Structure formats: C-alpha cells, structure tokens
C-alpha cells in the first residue's frame, strides 16, 4: 500500500531508500523527508502526546512540526519533517520525550566557523532569493542561508507558475545568477544577537547514509553582517476545535506540499477547513493529486468544523460540520498565516498586530535589518519578489515576474470552533482551550502567565504553530485585541540545537588550552603526576616506581633540606617593566618600596586591590636603573598584567613605564638545598652571589639570568634561560645530582618557613597585616593601592583572623574549621607532614582564641596547639649555605647546545596531517624576536599596539615567548575560519596584513605572508594546544 503518486514531485524515483520505523521495514525515495516517506507508507500515527498519550501524526512540513517526534539513530528526539531520508535510517516514534542511553558516547564531529559579509539573507524563498540576487549585483558581499536542501522556499511545495513557467524555473534562473554569493543550504539561522551577529546551524552530513567521520556532522556558523535581510516566510496556523490533534489533521499548506513536493497523498478523502484563501489552492492541488475533496469549509461563510471523530486506531475518520459527520481521513486546516518573526524579535525588533491579516508583523527594527516577503506579512509571490529586489538594493535591474496564483483576500480571525475541551492550542504540550480558559479564570491576564500555567509554547517547537493561537484564544476569552494581549518573548534558538554542536571542537584536550613549560616532556618521561594550576600542567610530585605520594613528597623535601633538589618554576608570571618611572610606579602598586631597590637586588612584594585585600605577591628585581623584572603567581600572571596596564593607562599615564610579558620566554629552574651551590657553580653560576641578588651569567654559552632567591628557606638559585634551552638545562641540573620535586614539595617547604600562598592562605578577605606581613607594608610611603582601606574600622579590628602555625598529633585536613568553646574561630589553610620536623604541621587563619582548640572536619575532631607560623630555621641560618665551602665557578665546561622548540614533538604529526594540494602546517624555525615600547624599531617590525612593536630589532628579547606555525595551501583560510572570528576574506585581510587575535582559545598574532600562507605566532606555552587544535582541524582535509 502506498500513497505515492506515480509522477511529479521533487523526489528521485530511481533512488529507492530503505528505512525502518518502529522496527518495520519501509522504502522511500531520495528527496523524501522521514515524514513524507511515512505518509507514503500510510503511517498515520507517529507517536503519542506527552501528557495525555493521544495518538499523533504528521501535522506540518518542516521545523514548525509539533507532533511527529521521532528518535533517529542516536538522536534522542527529532521531528520527522526535518529528517532527510537516507538509506538505512532507523527511526521510532516517541511519546513527547527523548530517552538517553547511559553508555552513549558520541563519536560524531561538530565544529564552528566564522564569516563576515555586507548582506546576510536568511531564507532562500522568492523574497530572499530576490534580495540576495539584487544585493550581489550591487557589489556587496552576500551570504544566503536556507533551511532546505534546495532553494525555493514555499515554491518547492507549490504548483504556481511565474511568467507562464513553473515557479522553480524562476528559482533556477535566479540561483544561476547568484554570482559571488555564498549559499548555504541545509542551514538554519537559530539566533540573531546584538550587533548583527547571526548564528546558524549547517547540517553537513546528516542526510547521508555514509557519513565521513572526518567531516563535521553539523557546523555552527557565526556571521557578522553589515545588514541582515530576513526572508523567513510564514507559518500557517491551526484552529482550536475538539479533536484537532488527531492523526490526519494537518496544516493545509503541509498537505499541499506533500502532494506537490514529495508526490505523496497525505489522505484519500479530505475536508478543507479554512478562514483564509490559501487553503483553496491546497484543495485544488490535493484534488489534482487524486485526493477526493469532500468539502471545503470556509469559516468566512459561516461554516465551521466543530469536532473530529476517530477511527479504531484513534486517527481521523470524520469531522462534524453543522451537526453532521463528514467522513474523511484528511483534514487540511488553515487558520491564517503567522509571519515567522522569530529572528526579527530576537534582534530586539518590535512587533505590531496587523488587523488586516490578523497576525503579528515586524514594526520597528532595532538593528541594521529588514524583513521582506511573507515574514513581514506580504502575500503573493510576485509581491514578495518585488520586496526582495528592493531590499537587495538594485531593484531597477530586475523585472517582477507575473504569477498565475489567485489574488488572496485577507483571512478572517478564527481561533476556536466548538467546545473548549480537547480543543488543542498546543499539540506538543497537550494544552487545550479549556486550559487557557481556566488560567484566565484563575486571575491571569498576561500571556506569559498563561504560558506558564498551561505550558503552551514551551515544547521543543516553542509554539511555532500554536503561540499566536494561544494569544488569539486569550483575546477571544478576554474580549481584548490580540495586539493588546501581545506575544511571549521569542528566544534563541529558532530550532533546537544539540549541546554537542554548541560545544563544537572544544572537547577533551581542546576544551581549554593546556599550557606546559619547555621542560614538560622531561616531566612526562620521568613519570611526574601533574596538578592543574589554572591552564598549566605543573608536576605535582615525581613518584619513583611504586612510591606513594606521601613517600615521594617526604623524599623530595628531604633532598631539598639535606642535599640538592630542583623544581620547574617556569610558570610564574614574569613581566619586564621599563621606563624612567618604574620605581615610582611600583611604589604605588606594591605595599612596600621599590624605588629604593639597588640595581641587581631582589625584593619580595605584596600587592593589594583597592579594598586592601591581598591580590598577588612575588619577587621583583631591579635589572637596571630603569628596568625591573616582576614575578607574579602562576595563576594571576594575566590578571596582574591587566592590572598594571589599567593603573598606568587609566590613572597614571604621565608615568614613563611599559610592560612586556616574558613568562614564556624564560624557562626557570629552581635549584634548592644545602648542596645547591656546588651544583650551580659547576654550571657557571658565581657561587658568591649574595642572597636576594641577581646576575646575568653565561650558562653553557647562553645568556642566562640567575636570582639568588629562596621560597624554601634553603640556599637556592633560580636559573633562567630562554625557552629553547629550558629542557636541556633541566636535564643537566638533574644529571648533576638534583632531585626533581613538584608543587606539593614546594608547598611543604614554604609552609615550613611560614610563607603564605596567595589563594591558599588568602581568599580575598585577607590583608597583608593579617598574614603577619606588616614588615612588607611601607609606613613611609604616602600611598599605595589599598592603603586607605587598611585604615578602615574593619581592617583595624583587634579580633581579625591572622596567620598562625598549628601542631597536631596527626595531619589535619586542609579546610578543617578551628573550634574552641567560643565556636568557629578560623580554618586550616595548609597542612602537611614535614620531613624536616618529622611531624605533621599546619598553617591556619584564626582569631585569637583562648582555651583548647580543635580542628574539625567530617566526623573528626583533632586537638591542635597554636605555634609560631615559622616552623623551620626561624633565624634564617641556612639560607646562605655554608660559607666555608663556596667553590669558584666552573664556567665554560658545558654547553647548552641543543635548542628545543615548543613544537618539537609535533614535527612528525604535522608532516602527515592535511594534504599537499589543500593545506599543510609546519613549524617555522626559531627566530630572534624583540619587543619595543616607543618608536618603531625598524627592520619590518609588526606594530602590536599604539607604541608596541615586535620584530628582529628592539628592546626586550622575547625570542622564546612565541613559537611560529606556518599554515599553507588553498584551504588554509578554511582552517583558520573554524577558530578565528576575524574577517579573513582576502579582499579585507591582504597579503602582509597581521593582527593580534584569538585562534581557537589561544591568543595569537596572525600574519598573512602570501596568497595562501599564514604565520601564527603563539605563546610557547600554548604551542602544544595550538598544534593539537590545528591537527584536529586539518583532519577534515587529510582525506582529500
């Protein structure tokens, strides 16, 4: 049995497709939707309604469908009307809800891309096609989107003739003239946001039986448009009467499109119920397709359908007209047309109610936007085309075709017919006229309240066919004008979009950049366990075979306290600060003095926010008279740079000071322990450097910076070499006897000395004074950021929580509250087992308390004893090591001769990714790069900011700060637009152009070096992330 017509339609009868529905094997044709194929196979009942369990069938033709909910493959809930049929499709009907498989792992690919245009046309029906054509011929860059697999819009489902020929001939001719227009079919605009930002989903492989795994299944396009032309058409609406939900009740326009476009009869004997002229054309077309038209009920002549009757299966068997039953298996309903104003409303445009067509239409645009055709309430193909040409901007070049369609009179307003019970206004949510009436009886007057009381319009269809009907029913019940009732707010997305599509490629390792240091590969090879610190992966500890974390940390601590140990300290933020006024500037930023710091000396400093709370800390060194090097905490590096720029640019622009981030340029190895001097002198470090000083030293033939600073209390050195030499330096230090240690040991060592960690001992409510750091708060300076707040009553309270030390018989949980008879007085901020003390100890923030104190967490209560917060070497006796054993330097007996780039590990993967004729990535060898603030340093420097340059010449060596990747090939731009939101159109982004922007989630300098060649400069710590991102993007082109 089939309702397929022998000829006609836009299906390809030479390509039969097999599919199953609820386990039953069926066939359809290429060009079918699942809905048309189901109708061809006489499947009337597709699913059940969500609350009442009533049988439901196909009601509409496209994304407005409220009823025909299906599961297709792994997609839990789709509408049968939007699923293109493919061979092997397996679908099942739903009862209003989707179901998720607990073990489901989606292996499909989803991605995003970004484009710019002068004119974005949404909708490829007659109005949109005309607009795109006219806009393109005026010279604009035009993008045209359409939801369907082919252009034509409503004409796909009509028998209308233009200029005496089938309307689709006009579509084909127009399409052929769309020179230079980027056309996206199977692409639905889902969101219209501020500043003419339109987001659309392109279904790239969903219609294919064999979906290539390397091509994204769906792509989320982000368009930034100079202006937007909306040509989104109109949705036909239904009429609420009892039993208007039965399978066999269908929108008249849908019934018409099924016969014309898909060559499928949705029934054999039809009643047409309408209050608008368009349904007569539907009747004509159904009749022409061999459907018996029992009668056409035109409400404007005083007739209505007052209810339906069902057959044994619950599907339509007849309708009641004037008290008599007319048998039929199809009821084609037309309650008028609602312009599809969703995107217009999302753009913040204002609607008005048009009393002529009884619908809400666009009134006032809020952005550079124009609605044309049916979506602004225009009737008739020719009129829509005329509006499209005019909006496109070159209307004079085009002739308006002559249509053979009947001129349509305005519809009548008809919202309900018959009784209220079982008269559905919202099919998907089972909401009836009676429900709306009850909500009004309860006191509700707002359409928003009625929506919430009844749930009308809250389904996956968001009430595309029902929303205005609800308003109409309300207006009828309240005796109010629908315009006064208003609509609920239209919100994105226009059609449902999957969570995976919204996530795109930002999954797994690409979900957030992983930052690593130059020594990372060594850490991995050594079996380090890593800790996430912001985006960084830092070694947490280095277990030996079978060693527990506790044992590893005790061993690492012991090495640092008794011998020599080393840590990768590269992640600390490093900011090179230059200018005549750096000292003055730092005096204002830090709580302590920097202008008096001697050249070559280092000083620990604390900075506060204006409210006086500790914001960051670190050691800052005076490299030269007018040059300092600031270090920040790992997590705050970017925030501190923002902070410095903010104060300089917005408050003290008169100060001569500039900032260069060198975090990634310098690789830092901390060498710690009583035997560290032997080790570092063997590398060429002068062993007599005093504590808190700095030297520029040649290490292994490389210009290095050495700081004699200590975060452990031990004799310690921080060796800094450019990125490319970091790994070799690290390996050399370990070869010469240092035991590697991670962040946990670093935390233990500093806690033994009572050094707080910002973010661990502080939480945004702690002042330097609370930390016992009044010594680092200058009394002499007239001001520093936060000073005034330190004089507020609350900051001066005697009972503030302060940093204290604790001893206890067992190790406490960090976060445990401290409790006395008076209640909670503080909490444990840090807690470890000390190798040096051979006992547990802790730091805490606590008020002064009397009597016994306990630390409490979970079910534990552990007595604690308050002690000094400096547990180890309070007199600082060990930090200079033993003077008698100061050896001399052994400079020159080793070489740092193996520079290793940040992309070293990716060379082979780049070599096999992509395809020669399409796109390739490769690393550009290390180059000298220097940053300058001030005048153009010349030598083809790139200007990064008003007075900020990067090039081979200049002030600050940043050669290690960035790594360069080259992307070449005709598809290079197609790779870049999947992660760069800028306009990379060759007409805009010419050869030689460069920008600082984002690629994926990495900050980059992007430079177009040739027609099809780009250089991407990325922070070296992000290079691995960017490489993974590029390799993932190249996957799409590796099969061509």
């Amino acid at each position, binding site marked *: 049995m089939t309702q397929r017509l022998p000829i006609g339609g836009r299906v390809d009868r030479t390509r039969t497709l097999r599919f199953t529905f609820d386990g039953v094997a069926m066939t359809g044709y290429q060009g079918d939707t699942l809905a048309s194929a189901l109708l061809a196979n006489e499947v009337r009942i597709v699913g059940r309604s969500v609350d009442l369990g009533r049988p439901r069938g196909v009601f509409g033709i496209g994304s407005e469908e409220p009823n025909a909910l299906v599961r297709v493959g792994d997609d839990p809930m789709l509408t049968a009307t939007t699923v293109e049929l493919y061979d092997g499709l397996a679908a099942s009907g739903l009862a209003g809800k989707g179901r998720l498989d607990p073990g489901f792992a989606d292996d499909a690919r989803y991605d995003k891309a970004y484009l710019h245009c002068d004119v974005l046309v949404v909708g490829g029906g007659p109005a949109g096609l005309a607009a795109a054509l006219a806009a393109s011929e005026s010279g604009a860059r035009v993008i045209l989107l359409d939801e369907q697999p082919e252009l034509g819009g409503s004409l796909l489902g009509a028998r209308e003739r233009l200029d005496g020929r089938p309307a689709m001939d006009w579509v084909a001719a127009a399409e052929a003239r769309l020179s230079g227009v980027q056309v996206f079919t199977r692409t639905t605009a889902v969101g219209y946001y501020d500043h003419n930002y339109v987001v659309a989903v392109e279904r790239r492989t969903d219609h294919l039986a064999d979906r290539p795994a390397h091509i994204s299944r769906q792509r989320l396009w982000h368009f930034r448009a100079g202006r937007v032309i909306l040509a989104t058409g109109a949705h036909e609406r239904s009429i609420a009467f009892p039993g208007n939900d039965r399978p066999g009740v269908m929108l008249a326009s849908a019934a018409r499109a099924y016969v014309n476009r898909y060559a499928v009869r949705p029934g054999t004997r039809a009643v047409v119920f309408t209050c608008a002229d368009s349904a007569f054309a539907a009747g004509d077309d159904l009749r022409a397709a061999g459907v018996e038209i029992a009668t056409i009920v035109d409400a404007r002549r005083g007739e209505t359908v007052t209810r339906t009757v069902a057959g044994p299966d619950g599907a339509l068997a007849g309708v009641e007209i004037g008290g008599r039953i007319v048998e039929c298996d199809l009821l084609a309903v037309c309650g008028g047309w609602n312009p599809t104003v969703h995107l217009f409303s999302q753009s913040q445009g204002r609607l008005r109610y048009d009393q002529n067509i009884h619908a809400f239409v666009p009134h006032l645009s809020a952005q550079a936007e124009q609605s044309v055709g049916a979506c602004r309430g225009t009737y008739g193909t020719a009129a829509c085309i005329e509006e499209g040409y005019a909006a496109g901007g070159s209307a004079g070049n085009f002739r308006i075709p002559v249509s053979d369609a009947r001129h349509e009179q305005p519809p009548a307003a008809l919202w309900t017919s018959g009784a209220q019970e079982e008269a559905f206004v919202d099919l998907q949510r089972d909401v009836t006229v009676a429900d709306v009436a009850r909500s009004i009886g309860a006191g509700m007057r707002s359409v928003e309240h009625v929506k919430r009381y009844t749930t009308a319009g809250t*389904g996956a269809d968001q009430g595309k066919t029902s929303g205005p009907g609800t308003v109409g029913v309300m207006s009828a019940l309240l005796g109010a004008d629908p315009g006064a009732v208003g609509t609920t707010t239209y919100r994105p997305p226009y059609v449902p979009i999957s*969570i995976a599509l*919204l996530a795109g490629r930002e999954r797994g390792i690409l979900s957030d950049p992983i930052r690593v240091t130059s020594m990372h590969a060594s850490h991995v090879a050594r079996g380090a366990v890593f800790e996430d610190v912001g985006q960084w992966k830092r070694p947490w500890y280095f277990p030996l075979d079978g060693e527990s974390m506790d044992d590893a940390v005790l061993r690492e601590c012991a090495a640092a306290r008794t011998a020599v140990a080393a840590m990768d300290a590269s992640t600390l933020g490093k900011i090179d600060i230059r200018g005549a006024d750096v000292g003055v500037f730092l005096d204002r930023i830090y709580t302590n003095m920097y202008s008096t710091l001697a050249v070559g000396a280092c000083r620990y400093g604390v900075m506060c926010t204006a409210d006086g709370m500790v914001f960051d800390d670190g050691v800052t060194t005076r490299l030269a008279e007018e040059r300092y090097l600031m270090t920040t905490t790992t997590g705050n590096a970017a925030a501190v740079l923002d902070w410095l720029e903010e104060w300089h640019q917005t408050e003290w622009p008169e100060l001569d000071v500039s900032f260069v981030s060198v975090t990634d340029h310098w690789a830092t190895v901390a060498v710690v322990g009583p035997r560290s001097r032997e080790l570092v002198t063997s590398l060429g470090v002068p062993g007599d450097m005093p504590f808190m000083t700095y030297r520029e030293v040649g290490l292994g033939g490389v210009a290095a910076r050495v700081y004699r600073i200590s975060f452990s209390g031990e004799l310690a050195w921080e060796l800094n070499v450019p990125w490319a030499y970091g790994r070799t330096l690290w390996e050399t230090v370990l070869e010469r006897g240092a035991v590697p240690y991670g962040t946990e040991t670093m935390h233990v060592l500093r806690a033994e000395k009572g050094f707080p960690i910002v973010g661990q001992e502080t939480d945004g409510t702690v002042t330097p004074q609370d930390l016992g750091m009044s010594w680092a708060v200058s009394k002499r300076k007239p001001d520093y950021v936060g000073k005034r707040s330190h004089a507020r009553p609350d900051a001066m309270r005697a009972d503030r929580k302060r940093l204290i030390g604790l001893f206890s018989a067992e190790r406490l949980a960090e976060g*445990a*509250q401290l409790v006395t008879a008076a209640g909670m007085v503080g*909490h444990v901020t840090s807690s470890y087992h000390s190798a040096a003390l051979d006992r547990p100890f802790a730091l805490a923030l606590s008020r002064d308390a009397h009597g016994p104190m306990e630390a409490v967490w979970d079910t534990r209560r552990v007595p604690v004893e308050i002690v000094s917060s400096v547990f180890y070497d309070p007199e600082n006796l060990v930090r200079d090591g033993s003077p008698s054993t100061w050896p001399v330097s052994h400079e020159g007996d080793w070489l740092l001769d193996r520079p290793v780039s940040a992309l070293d590990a990716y060379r082979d993967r780049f070599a096999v990714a992509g395809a020669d004729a399409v796109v390739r990535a490769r690393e550009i060898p290390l180059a000298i790069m220097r940053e300058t603030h001030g005048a153009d340093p010349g030598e083809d420097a790139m200007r990064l900011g008003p007075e900020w340059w990067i090039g081979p010449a200049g002030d600050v060596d940043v050669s290690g700060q960035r790594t360069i990747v080259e992307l070449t090939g005709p598809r290079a731009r197609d790779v870049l637009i999947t992660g760069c939101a800028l306009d990379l159109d060759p007409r805009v982004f010419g050869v030689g152009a460069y920008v600082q922007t984002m690629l994926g989630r990495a900050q980059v300098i992007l430079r177009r070096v040739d027609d099809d060649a780009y250089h991407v400069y990325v922070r070296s710590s992000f290079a691995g992330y960017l490489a993974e991102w590029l390799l993932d993007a190249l996957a799409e082109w590796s099969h061509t």
Partner: protein
Amino acid sequence: MRHPDFLWRNPSPKSAYDVVIVGGGGHGLATAYYLARNHGITNVAILEKGWLAGGNMARNTTIIRSNYLWDESAAIYEHSLKLWEGLSAELDYDLMFSQRGVLNLAHNLPDVREGRRRASANQQNGIDAEWLDADEVKKFCPILNTSPHVRYPVLGATLQRRAGIAKHDHVAWGYARAADALGVDLIQGCEVTGFEIDGGRVTAVRTSQGRIAAGTVALAAAGHTSVLADKAGIRLPLQSHPLQALVSELLDPVLDCVVMSGAVHVYVSQAHKGELVMGAGIDAYNSYGQRGSFNVIERQMGAALELFPIFSRVRVVRTWAGIVDVAPDASPIIGPTPVEGLYINAGWGTGGFKATPGSGWVYADTIANQRAHPLAEPFSLDRFTTGALIDEHGAAAVAH
C-alpha cells in the same frame, strides 16, 4: 500538576497603603505574605511593573541550597531552607520542592580546599554537608564523567542532601494566592516612576497608575533596584548583569540530583517534566537587556558536555537571561536606607530564588519593626563603609 482554579484578584490600586512593596517577584510576594501572616499588616500593595514574578523569578534555575561559607550567609540561607521544608504545606500548593541533593564539584586542589572548608563550616553551623571523593561522587551521580583523563577531572564534591529544586512559578503563585487571600493588593502593570520624600521621609510613590501614599516603601526589585533607588536619590553599590540559562527538550529521567561546577561555569538539573535546566556564568558587562552573549552559552555547553558526555545530542530549545544585581562582596543588602521609611532588599545576585522564603521573612520583620532583623544586620549598607564585607565570591561567584 493541575494549578488552582483561582489564584488572585486583579484589583485597582487604592490611594494609600501602610506598606507599598515595589516589585512583584518572589521576594516581594513572600515579603507581603509574611507581613500579613507574621505581623498582621495587611493594608499592603505590591506594585509590579510587568507581570507577577516575571523577572528573575521566572528565569532562574530553581536551585535551593544553604551551604554558604560565612556564618552570616549560612544563617540566612539556612533559615530560608528550613522555611522551604514546610512551604508546600503552609501555602497549600505543591511547590515540587525536591530535596534531591546538590553537588558542588571540585576540579583542582584549591577547589578541594574550599569545598572541605565550606563543608566543615556548614557542619559547625548545623547545616548538613558532606565531602565526597571522586568515587563517592560517581556513586551519587552515575552519569557524571569522573574519569581522571578529562581536561579538569572531578576530584571530589561537597554534597548537601537537603538541597534541591522547586518549581519557580508555583512558588510565586503560592505566595501570591496566599497574600491575596490575606488582603494584599497585587497590582500588575504598575510602574513606579518616582518617590515623594518629605523631610527625609518617604510619603508616597508616583506610578503609571497614579500617586499612591505609603507609610513604608519597600524595594524588592532585584536587577532594577539601582534604577529605583536613583529616583529616591540613593546610590547603591550594585551592578546589574545578565545571567543566562537554558532548557532542553523533554527527556525521560536521567539526572536525579543537582550538579554545580564553579570552576567550569555550569550547573545542571532535570526538572520534573523532564527538561534539563542549565545555568551559565554571569556576563561581565552591565545590562538590563535580559539577554546575554552567545559565547557564554557555547562555553557553558562545552563544560556541561565534559561532565555529562551522554548529553551530547540533547537539544537546547530555549535560552534566556535574567538581570542580577550584584554587590561587591556577592552578598545581599537588606535593611533601612538613608531615606526614612524606605527599605531595600537587593543584591541577591545569583542567590535570589533559594533565598525567597528567608528573605521575605526577614524583610517583613525588618519593615514591621522598623529595624533590621537580626539575620539581616550583617547585610547592612553600612558594611561597605566599615569594610566588614561578607565575601561569598569563593562560594558563589559562579555557583548558584
């Protein structure tokens, strides 16, 4: 469920009231109800510019919990939670209050410390709180991806079992019906355009429906508080931002608890009807537009998918934003203002819904007794001058 056949009258405003509450959201409705019920003050009007509970009350993700860090916050939110526990019965309205447990996930070591600290403080404050390790988290919420191999693995979580969700409209309508029944006039479509202040004391409000004299005026306007206060000549330390949320299509039951992650900016629950309800972080910029930027939603969904891989093909059907008013310490401001007779209850930021009963209770008491309720005292405007802030950023900056 079937809603009652009658909820409220739609009266015209009288010329004078003892108390005029500006803002007919959850807090305003609860305040009116408790004024009438606890204090016998029934000559009260609520003036709502739009439709009742159409602001943040209609836009939030309905999470209810009390596991805040500081004693002051914990006290007021716990007072609220205790009221929630009896509220359906008291209002004779099924609020669909479901104490299904809220997990606050920890993804890094600072998160773990903060979580344990908060759980320990909660326990000391008599609030149920547990610390779960990753395996226990997996047991409590089996569909959560607790693999150590994801970008930011779940290291543990705090669990408040008494926390959960309720149905926001039901809450609002339950309070509205009860307040209406006690004689409170609920006036919708009535915008306050100014205040009459005589000798430093507020005497009336000017509205789109005329002048209404008032003995006391109480602001309960959430994101619009600054705009109203400005009309009374008061500057407040509040900024209004978009806070976005979204829902999916309906699904069979798949998630029976609430999962929140401050570190990756997402929180998820499944509502009674079956839709997933998810919230995002606050948009950075000031806005009254009730919409946010799309990139926030994209990030949020990426984070959600890392936690719940099985949500991959679930479809989002609607996104929106509320306007949250945020104070510098992410804590509310409750109490008197420099204008005599004018009270403020604002700055609830992302925490407004869960606070509804407690806030209404405390605010009504403050209005009735013309002094701050003890639970409201720490939340005075004065704290910004003394510096005694109640900084809940650690616990509530993103989390809700």
